């Protein structure tokens, strides 16, 4: 019977160590294979997850539990215009939603357009959004300097503006307090009353490159229509978003006198949809990256099997001797298995260490990449490495143990 004791484990450990240090170069090359495999799994997964969480954070930053309504397509006869181009959403719709929907925190209509802005000789072209004070709640906008648009501003149609930090940089320069300064939008003077906190971002819809003005002022001075280009609604919680969305659809259909929701002249998007779409994209990315890394792990595993098989062949006589002096099959089996497992264990530990360091260092050099080391990927990588050791060590170990001592001793 297999006698398990500390003697046995101690012997097994010593023999394994002896065998591995007996051929240091080969052992370390094999370990290297596993190190690269494990490290790349951890690094790749951390890059994938970093991308996922940074995208999710970006989406979250536009507001939480956000529902966006945009006007439907313009229709003239049978010819469809582009979606969002129609003027179908009115201030009255906003009021109706505000008064009749349950479970909402805020409703903020917006009218926006790109305009040329000038201020003391500098000028820029940016998005001007006319909106209400709720906008800051609904879209998670925080104020760095001054104030956001207030009810007072709306009531009086005050010609005030709140700048995004990038717009401030363009018009006044970095680090300058713009509060109290005057900017010209379509040749109308607006007084700057505040500046928002940077949300980070770039490109065409940069949340930092924007000017907010009161909706009423927008309607009076910058456009003369009653239509809004979008309505933003924040629901109380994620759970009730669907119900809020249904209520809104119902209200709008009724107000717009549309019977069938297929003919709706507006469209409703909610943030969860966007997040889940983005997550599925980044999820695919993570899978792609980890399967590439997984291949290198597999190759590392085959490296171990290769080394173990070579070792078995090379040590055939030694195995024969061990069997001849009465060491049982099971111990021969265990010893070779232990060698393979120890190789993967050392490789796995070093690999985790290396992968961890790489995950920390990579974002420092490639600033556009963010990484997030997940505990799960470490556990996964380690158990895969242990599994690789057992699976790829098992066959060579069995082969060694099953050698006939006579044949093995005769082996040249």
């Amino acid at each position, binding site marked *: 019977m297999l006698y398990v004791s500390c003697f046995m484990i101690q012997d097994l450990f010593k023999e394994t160590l002896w065998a591995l240090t007996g051929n240091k170069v080969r052992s370390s090359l094999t370990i290297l294979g596993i190190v690269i495999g494990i490290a790349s799994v951890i690094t790749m997964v951390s890059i994938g997850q970093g991308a996922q969480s940074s995208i999710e954070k970006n989406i979250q930053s536009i507001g939480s539990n956000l529902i966006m309504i945009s006007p439907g397509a313009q229709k003239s006869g049978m010819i469809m215009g582009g979606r969002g181009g129609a003027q179908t959403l009115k201030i009255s719709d906003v009021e109706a939603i505000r008064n009749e929907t349950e479970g909402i925190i805020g409703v903020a209509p917006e009218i926006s357009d790109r305009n040329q802005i000038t201020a003391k000789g500098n000028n820029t072209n940016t998005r001007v959004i006319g909106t209400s004070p709720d906008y800051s709640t609904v879209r998670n906008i925080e104020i760095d300097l001054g104030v956001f648009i207030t009810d007072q501003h709306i009531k009086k149609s005050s010609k005030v503006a709140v700048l995004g930090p990038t717009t401030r940089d363009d018009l006044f320069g970095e680090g300058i307090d713009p509060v109290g300064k005057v900017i010209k939008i379509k040749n109308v003077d607006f007084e700057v009353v505040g500046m928002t906190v940077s949300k980070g971002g770039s490109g065409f819809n940069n949340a930092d490159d924007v000017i907010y003005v009161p909706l009423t002022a927008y309607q009076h001075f910058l456009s003369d229509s009653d239509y809004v280009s979008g309505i933003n609604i924040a629901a109380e919680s994620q759970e009730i978003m669907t119900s809020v969305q249904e209520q809104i659809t119902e209200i709008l259909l009724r107000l717009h006198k549309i019977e069938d929701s297929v003919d709706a002249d507006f469209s409703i998007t909610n943030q969860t949809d966007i997040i889940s779409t983005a997550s599925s994209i980044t999820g695919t990315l993570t899978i792609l990256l980890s399967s590439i890394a997984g291949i290198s792990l597999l190759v590392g595993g085959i490296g171990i099997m290769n080394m173990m098989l070579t070792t078995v062949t090379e040590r055939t006589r030694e195995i024969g001797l061990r069997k001849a*002096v009465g060491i049982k099959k099971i111990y021969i089996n265990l010893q070779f298995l232990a060698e393979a497992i120890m190789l993967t264990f050392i490789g796995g530990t070093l690999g985790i260490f290396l992968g961890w360091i790489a995950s920390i260092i990579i974002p420092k050099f490639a600033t556009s990449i963010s990484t997030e080391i997940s505990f799960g990927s470490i556990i996964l990588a380690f158990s895969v490495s242990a599994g690789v050791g057992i699976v790829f060590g098992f066959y060579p170990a069995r082969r060694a143990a099953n050698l006939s001592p006579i044949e093995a001793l005769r082996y040249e």
Partner: protein
Amino acid sequence: MISCKNLTKIYQNGDTKTFALNNVSFEISEGEFVSIIGPSGSGKSTLMHILGALDNPTSGEYFLDGREVSKLNDDELSELRKNKIGFVFQSFNLLPRTTVLRNVMLPLLYTKTTNQERLERAKQCLHYAGMEENKFQNLSNQLSGGQMQRVAIARALINNPSIILADEPTGNLDTKTSRTVMEALRELNKKGHTIILITHEMDVANYANRIIFVRDGIIEKDEINNHIPYNMQQETK
């Protein structure tokens, strides 16, 4: 102590049956020094494998210390080899790049003995086999042929086996070293160990007190040896 009855070993290769051993019977009692001699292909190696519990006969019975060996399974044979049989091989079969002490302790792996006990027993056996103390920490590949065979003899002794089975122990040694190794084996025999020597050289076989001649799978002759080398004869008297 050893009793073989009608040992037969048949190797089957396709349709042709080869009788490596054909109805071999003999007995060896405790304390004997026996040579088994025969040309290659005579079946002496097969006999050695069976006596060494490395292989089972096709038919026949082999009793070692009253125990029927021929029906044991792999693990039982291992256990038997560990406790009852010490092997000395032609090619020494030491672990490469490993100290003398570690080599001698090899059969004690996975047994209930402490490191201290193992070391003590190994040192004792090495002294017994005539190995110099200052070589105990040497690596096996730094030894001369004669020294390697002494280490192998010490290893064979470590479990205090009933028999020591030496398979061409001098095959890889020059004449002078061969003599010292054979003298060491005779010493062991004098101290009470049963020794079975397998060889094809008459000179070597002559160190034993009894010689079994094997040819074509049968025992040709089994006789008391009267040709023990002169210096040895003196000792034994």
